[in-house]
């Protein structure tokens, strides 16, 4: 337990600026602040110790295995941290004339070339700040594409989709049509045919889907979608399973986003910032947001005006510091080795799945892609995914994603990623087995887990009933 930093206020100063004159009389009193803000008054040392101590209350990738399904918590080499903070990158104002920003512009341009190479989609924007922001951009592109066909008011979303997909469609003014998966956790072609039609603007698919499975019928699906005059959107959050093996364009994808902070190695930062690059197939490039980099053979420039573009989805050109990391990462692979990301990620996931088969069976009993969705065995009715998750924290492992996807009861979604070794996976597997044994002996111990973390079972109801959101 750490005190709040405001509770540590002792009248000290962290940063002092010399030579300050009280020039507030330059402004009329009515424009001035009446009371000083209630901010901490502490020394630099107090601040350093406070945040160092706070950091130690976290599990993180650098300290713990973090098998969060759908989140792709892979190791990000430290060199990228150094490279993205090079002063010539970080100290550049976004309205610096192109002549003085050639390095950054060249990097952005070359990154786009790499994205084309790995996906086959012909043009990219790096403006969106996150995956969901990329989806939003994609849905706006679909809206603009169908501008002359006012009847296309629906977006079809399978029940295995990320929550962001339906939320995105609604934000763009579309009606969301949910479709149920079949018994094999995949899009039910008959269900799809029923809802696909002249009202459909776009179908949003997560590939592989959130059950960790590849849509075997993808070619049939894209044929149906296109025959209906709709666009196929690929939520690329799970691209880690396919990178270097399959090009989305070959599957008939019209628009997709890649979470640069998942597949292309930027740390998650406790929730962000990410970046959600969006790519489109030929014919849709003019609709992309402004701020794309152009190259005339000699000089790189920014495209800031275009009549057909959907406009800007944020200020300026994108989360460039994240783009630099993602570019650095991709440059460490060539066309042959790129596929090893996916191969190793899929190998690790299947290893966990098979080794835990008799303890926590996969809900869909078949080969999975980069993640396996496990569940609680039927003969363990008292055990819950939540208990497993919390007990894992005691045993030194971050929990998997739980209760997602919604179609799997008591879901434990495990995504080891390619950067974990067999030893780490074996340790995790042993911990899961231990929990399984504990559940047989003493379920109430699990119910009250975690026991070893600094904080025990949390009263979430209290937090919501009497919200205390600031000091």
């Amino acid at each position: 337990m750490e005190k709040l930093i405001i509770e540590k206020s002792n009248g000290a100063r962290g940063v002092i600026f010399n030579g300050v004159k009280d020039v507030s009389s330059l402004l009329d009193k009515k424009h001035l602040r009446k009371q000083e803000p209630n901010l901490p008054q502490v020394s630099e040392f107090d601040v350093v110790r406070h945040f160092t101590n706070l950091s130690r209350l976290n599990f993180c990738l650098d300290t713990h295995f973090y098998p969060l399904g759908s989140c792709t918590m892979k190791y990000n080499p430290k060199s990228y941290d150094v490279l993205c903070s090079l002063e010539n990158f970080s100290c550049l104002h976004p309205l610096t004339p192109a002549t003085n920003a050639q390095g950054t512009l060249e990097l952005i341009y070359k990154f786009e070339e790499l994205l084309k190479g790995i996906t086959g989609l012909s043009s990219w924007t790096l403006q969106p700040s996150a995956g969901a922001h990329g989806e939003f951009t994609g849905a706006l592109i679909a809206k603009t594409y169908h501008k002359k066909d006012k009847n296309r008011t629906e977006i079809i979303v399978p029940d295995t989709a990320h929550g962001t997909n339906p939320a995105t469609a609604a934000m763009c003014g579309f009606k969301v049509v949910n479709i149920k998966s079949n018994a094999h956790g995949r899009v039910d072609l008959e269900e799809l045919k029923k809802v696909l039609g002249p009202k459909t603007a776009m179908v949003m698919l997560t590939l592989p889907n959130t059950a960790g499975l590849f849509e075997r019928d993808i070619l049939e699906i894209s044929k149906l979608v296109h025959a209906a005059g709709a666009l196929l959107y690929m939520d690329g959050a799970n691209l880690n399973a396919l990178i270097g093996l399959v090009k989305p364009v070959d599957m008939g994808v019209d628009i997709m986003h890649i979470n640069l902070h998942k597949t292309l190695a930027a740390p998650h930062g406790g929730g962000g910032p990410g970046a959600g690059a969006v790519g489109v197939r030929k014919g849709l490039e003019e609709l992309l947001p402004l701020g794309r980099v152009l190259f005339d053979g000699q000089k790189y420039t920014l495209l800031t005006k275009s009549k057909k573009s959907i406009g800007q989805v944020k200020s300026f050109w994108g989360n460039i510091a994240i783009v630099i990391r993602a570019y650095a990462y991709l440059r460490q692979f060539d066309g042959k080795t790129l596929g090893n990301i996916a191969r190793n990620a899929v190998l690790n996931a299947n290893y966990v799945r098979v080794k835990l088969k008799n303890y926590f069976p996969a809900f869909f009993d078949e080969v999975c892609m980069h993640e396996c969705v496990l569940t609680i065995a039927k003969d363990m009715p008292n055990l819950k995914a939540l208990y497993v998750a919390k007990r894992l924290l005691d045993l030194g492992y971050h929990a998997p994603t739980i209760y997602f996807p919604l179609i799997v009861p008591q879901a434990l979604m495990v995504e080891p990623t390619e950067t974990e070794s067999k030893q780490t996976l074996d340790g995790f597997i042993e911990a899961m087995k231990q929990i399984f044994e504990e559940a047989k002996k003493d379920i109430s111990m699990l119910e009250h887990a975690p026991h070893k973390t600094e904080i025990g079972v949390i009263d979430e109801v209290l937090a919501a009933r009497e919200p205390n959101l600031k000091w």
Partner: protein
Amino acid sequence: MFDASSKETKAAMLKEIGIENIEELFKDIPSNLKQAKFNLPAALDEQDLTKYIKALAAKNKPLLNFAGAGIYEHFIPAAVNALSTRGEFLTAYTPYQAQASQGTLQAIYEYQSSICALFDMEVSNASHYDGATALAESVYAACQIKGINKVLISAGLNPQYKQVLKTYFNGTREIKFEEVSLKEGTLDLQDLKNKLQTPSAAFVLATPNFFGCLEESEEISKLVHVNNALLISVVNPISLGILETPGSYDSDFAVAEGQCLGNAMNFGGPGLGIFTCKKQYVRYMPGRLCGITKDDKGNRCFVLTLQAREQHIRRERAASNICSNQALCALNALIYLSLLGPKGLKEVALLNLEKAHNLAKEISQVKGFSLAYQKPFFNEFVVNCPIPAKQVINKLAKKGILAGVDLGQVDKSLKNSLLVCITETKTQADIERFISCLRGI
């Protein structure tokens, strides 16, 4: 890139799975899809990669910066990055597992608290993408609250923000925007009065506005509320070290670009979307919120709360689709505010105010240059130039100076107008260099 397991280990793993060849794991993928060829440049090892990226960085030629317009250059104390780039913060995920994330959660709570203190507002979320997208979300919330799909915006709103509003709402949620014009650099209150006669969900005020001028916030707020609309304020967080706060003039929502609080410019991204509102509107708020609660031993602890607004619970009925936010940038802002405290923040603001007034005075004494408006300003102001601003920028760029922002890009009639910004980072010598270059034009 490295392999986490040796060839032998991988073979052993395949054996455990019960297959011989790893390609068997990809049997679900139609074989014609697996014929793809990937044409990438040769792979670089860490040493070569470092050299290569450094060479790219060297192609940038940063200028002595007098541009603002939404992204500002401020001094960043070393402790900010030293702390926020600790692996425990940098490589953690969204704090869904509260027991494994008390550090991040407490930091979010402290961030929310610091922002509320700075803005005098009741609630802040855990962060949004940037100032412009935070504004778009607040506009949508206001329309939901009022049940009206029309919003008035100040003509002095940053044009990037206007663009983003247009992109967000044009043809999607059918929100209509109407601009309230400016008169001599600040809002024309008569025009505001007239336009408030027809029902609007909200008025978007920017102060300082895009042209650097301070608005009559108090009076504007009264006008807006008398006409039953909500007030959404867009402010510059650093200016709040001395300037009146959005809470003090009764803003219903206040949003801002928070990059200026301890985050580098990074060519414009990542930014930090600050999103605050009155308590009564918290359920319309997008994004994550962290609150205090207790554990079963009675210990104070922190947890993400009021999640029923969010996409992972509510799907198509969520307040917003936002998932990843700008957590690390928010952490930078928190550490920055903790280091400066109320006094340091006031000092920074005073330095900005003083330097801007010195620079403005010096520029207006250069032949052919004058200040465009006679209105109070903080650290940014418009200069009328004897030649197009674009030419001034090009000429000074050759001398290593970014003179400001060409307003001709925003409005052709302003082609001779230059938007100049100065912060505490510039010395008297920098000012003299700038002035002597302007004289040389």
